């Protein structure tokens, strides 16, 4: 069988000879890419942390990180609700509402919320939102 001779390939670039395999632009692009990824990652990991949203009268009263242990006092129409953040968990420690529903609810699970309706206070444990891994 006759084998056809193909005219020799002409490289568009002086492909490899002469230049080092990693050139200035390569280093530059790789560096920019890496910085971009690290920056995105840092921003992301911050925003994926859980935080607490406290509402009074349906308006956001305060947002707090779950990482910082602290007590937050909210003055509602009936009196002071005390919200406790400890070791990455959050609960309503004290509330003037007559039936104490929100206090008895205890530690609020991620994604959950406790509402003290008489005192018009709600606390939401806003966990990292949905991502594709939930699907």
């Amino acid at each position, binding site marked *: 069988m006759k084998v056809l001779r193909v005219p020799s*390939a002409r490289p568009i670039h002086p492909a490899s000879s002469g230049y080092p395999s990693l050139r200035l632009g390569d280093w530059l692009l790789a560096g920019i890419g890496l910085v971009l990824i690290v920056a995105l990652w840092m921003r992301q990991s911050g925003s994926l942390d859980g935080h607490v949203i406290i509402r009074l009268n349906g308006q956001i009263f305060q947002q707090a990180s779950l990482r910082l242990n602290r007590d937050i006092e909210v003055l509602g129409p009936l009196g002071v609700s005390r919200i406790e953040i400890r070791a990455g968990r959050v609960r309503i420690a004290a509330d003037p509402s007559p039936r104490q529903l929100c206090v008895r609810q205890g530690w609020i699970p991620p994604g959950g919320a406790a509402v003290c309706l008489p005192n018009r206070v709600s606390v939401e444990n806003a966990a990292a939102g949905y991502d594709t891994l939930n699907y």
Partner: protein
Amino acid sequence: MTPSTIELLTSAEDRRIAGLAAAAIGLTLAEAAIPLPIPGIKPGLANIVTLVVLYRYGWRTAAWVAGLRIVAGALALGQFLTPAFMLSLAGGATSLAVLAAAMHLPPRWFGPVALSLLAAFAHIGAQLWVVDVWLLPGASILGLLPLFLAAAWITGLANGLATGYLLKSNPQPEEDFP
């Protein structure tokens, strides 16, 4: 046995494209056998072939090889016209478009690693976009962006280095695909 009366007329370039596409399809199939922890992240070894072809024979041939690899690879894996195929097609088309522009960067400063990185970022960017608007609208894909970009960075770098090595160690390409 009667000799076949059907004769396909193929040009030398057809045979060259077929041979190169076969190499790319082989890599795609081999890669599909590698177990990977996260769906959507794979090394994309066939892109080494695309890059080598781009350097050796130009963009047109590279586009043919990549297109044949995407279609035939999907047929062989039973993924033709599935979402996986659409993702592969979107990624392939976008990275080819980016390569069409990037190949005109001055070769003094930008080598195969730069082209490979740009193609990898374009590839994953297009795929995440398709996932976001078509496959999983409403899901916050953005949260996974750093993970996928990091994977693209690693595979882009590795494939670029492999391409550079192949071009260097093989200055005279095999010309015949009889």
